[in-house]
């Protein structure tokens, strides 16, 4: 029985790509323009046939074995008991190694503070029994927090197309693929 590991559940079947999650994050943390803790990635047409009509909303995946935590030379990263990976800006010296190393582009370089920063899964809110800003913002419950230690959904995908596979990191995120509507184009 694995230990507690909070994770994002990204339901692309429900997701309407409205960017509320990404903006809710800015609204809460006011990051530097250009710095995005959460991004809504459109799927290319060889994954979903219609241009910019299906998305993965991604931030930090709070991996089981985080590269950032491993590669940080000053130990600015810690992993909480609930699995959230937290970055401590006071320790950070801005070497950029985590920014270079994370295959999911979660840590971002803040040119003004000359330090790295990333999604904290709003752990302060979670500790206060609140949902993370992005999750509360989702109008269709396409973004949820799950605990992998008790999550069991046969349909859920770990590495859907368009999401890089890194078993050694074991990103704490699960997906549901988008569906296609039956399309009746007009003739003439």
């Amino acid at each position: 029985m694995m230990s507690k590991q909070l994770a994002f559940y990204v339901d692309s079947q429900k997701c309407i790509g409205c960017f509320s999650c990404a903006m809710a994050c800015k609204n809460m943390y006011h990051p530097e323009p250009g710095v995005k803790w959460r991004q809504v990635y459109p799927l290319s047409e060889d994954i979903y046939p219609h241009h910019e009509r299906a998305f993965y909303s991604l931030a930090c995946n709070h991996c089981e074995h985080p590269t950032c935590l491993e590669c940080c030379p000053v130990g600015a990263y810690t992993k909480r008991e609930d699995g959230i990976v937290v970055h401590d800006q006071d320790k950070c010296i801005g070497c950029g190694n985590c920014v270079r190393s994370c295959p999911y582009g979660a840590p971002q370089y803040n040119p003004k503070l000359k330090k790295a920063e990333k999604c904290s899964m709003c752990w302060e809110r979670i500790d206060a029994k609140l949902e993370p800003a992005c999750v509360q913002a989702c109008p269709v419950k396409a973004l949820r927090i799950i605990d992998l230690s008790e999550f069991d959904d046969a349909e859920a995908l770990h590495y859907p197309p368009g999401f890089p596979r890194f078993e050694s990191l074991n990103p704490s995120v699960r997906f549901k693929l988008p569906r296609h509507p039956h399309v009746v184009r007009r003739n003439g």
Partner: protein
Amino acid sequence: MEKERKLMNSSLLNEMSRRSFVKLLTAGGAAAMLHGGLLTPKAFAGPAKTAGGCKAFHSACQRNCYDTCAMLSYVDDGVLKYVEGDKQSTFTNGGLCVKGYSYPRRVYSPDRIKYPMKQIGRGTGNWKRISWEEAIDSICDKILSIKKEDGHLLGLALDKNSGSEGITNCAVIQGLFTGLGYTTRFEGSNCWPAGYDAQYFDFGDMVCNDPEDLANAGYIILWGVNPAWTSIHTMKFIYAAKERGAKVVCIDPVLTQTAAKCDEYLAPKMGTDGALALGMARHILDLGLADRGWVADNALGFPEFEQYLREKVTVQWAAEETGIPAETIARIAEEFAKAKPATVWIGYGLQRHTNGGRAVRSIDALVAMTGNVGKKGGGARYGQEFTWDFEYWPKSKMSPPAGSIGFVNPAKQKPGEPTVYSNRSLNRNQAAREMRKADPKIRMLWVSCSNPMSQYPNRNEMEKMYRGLDMLVVVDQFFTQTAELADIVLPTTTQFEEWQVNVSYWHYWLAINEQCIEPLFEAKPNTVISALVSKRMNELSPGSCTYQQDLTPKECMIRNFNDTIHKLNGISSWEDLLKGPVKAKRNPVSWAEGKFKTPSGKYEFLSAKAAEYGHPALPEYHSRRPNHDKFVVLTPHTKFGLHSQFINLDWMRDFNPEPCVYINPNSARSKNIVSGDMVRVYNKFGEVAVKAQVTDNVPEDTLLMYEAWFKNEKFNVQNVLDDAVADMGAYQFGGHRGPAIQEQFANVEKM
């Protein structure tokens, strides 16, 4: 900043040292130094508040939007920190949207208009900062001189639009103008008039079921509406219906985000929705699936409608008109008729056509003949206004100064009777055309909650007209393309800096908006601006304005409440709303009692009123106007903005960096355009230079650009839109028909 910043948490700023500093300052002869300085002595107000502990205020989003979200605003030390949706509203359930979450950025954007400013030479960009007094003076002087020279104020025009839907903003500016005398008003609506009239002809009113009731539907057609972008909080109720087994069909010329989330998507030719609805109706008739019982009890003129269908309409004909295969039309019709309850959400897109009102009537008929009107989970949903019965105080309680001369309406004026004066009402959907032919000429224009240069068709003609004015006053938060032409801009407040109360034209919720921060810079609420003008008018010429001279936004908001609103929402006073938003206590099913407000008291397939306004009494089909250029041009809403708002904010640019025009791969090939090329979208009215994005989300004969105002960009879709109007709107909108802005044409070429 290499060094550790110790200032904010240093003991230097605590009460102890404050006392010692104050001593020092008096000892150090600071009194002398303060003289002629800026900073002034501060009364002791206790130790500075520590960060963290934010105070929550109730806010409401003011935008012209289905969702009109009840918000919570978190303020610390007088500064808005972040916003949230109010979980007490079951409609939004604690969420906002990509626009709503950008509000902290909007309030504190360095780009806001900060002071009253006067432009020396229209469009020169030479701005002088002036005091409010000076601004109001020059405005009042101008008004008085117009009155003196013309003997009336018809040369003074007001364009107040839907930039802020707060109830006081729907009354105060109009109130001021009524107080001044009979003036010229740009009226009508750029939004929904054709469909609005259609529903009035059919039902005698426009009322929709509670959107939260969509969850009860067995079959949903989303017709010309894109809630995944324009009403994101309604989507969860559509999903709920889906999870309970309902089928969801989307009908739209564009494969929208909503289409991608439906079970089935039909792409008819632009402007043929009426034919599709009638084709379905005919097939339902043939299958004998019409709800004759309901029709017999509740409807007028079904036999005539039936006869029209049998004589003039076939599924095959509909297939040819719309491009949708006959078997599909038949199948969807059958599914719709058999599913109980079935509902249609009629979008505003499909009625912005020269045949848009008729299209809506045809869809109403389809829903009615299948007995889905007045049913839980059913209905022809378009919008509602029963939650809007406020006082609109003071507008509703006012009359112009005695002896004011105004517009005489030849149609209404009976010979021999004393002349009846009124305002001169012009159709904002043809603003440029109306201004050109206006006699007496419009000399001064006041623009409020409106950005005509970005929102009204035929921009080039619009600009000519605006440049011809003696004086243009623009009240806004940001320096829009309209403000660029102004002689005087006045900075106005966001909802966080004023009191408001808000309702939606879709859901049933009522929310109050508390002022939670001081107005920034010299921004003032419209309530205050109007009072200032009235005060000055009366100083310069006593009795020249009957509008209140001292009116606070809060008081004005309070006075808008009345018993109707209290009863409807089950509150005893406005103060109850300080606990949170409330939902109207009303049957979520519209027309459940079958008492319609038409002349006959029944649902009218056959509408004498329609005939009276020059339309066929039946929802007959009429094909749209022919193309005047190679491609159809659609200019709907983007998910990143509301009309010309929000898109200019840099937070938004992180997700929506630049405008583009969407082109179908085949058309792109024929014009040898690839994604990323700069192209010219042009026609006889003007052109737009923009990046191309190739996608088969749009059909081959169509170009799509989202209407928007980007900071520092010339992009403006209105350059290529003409001022064609819809068939309907005249009935409920004082003779002003709706816009046909989804029925536009242009060509494209690589630059």
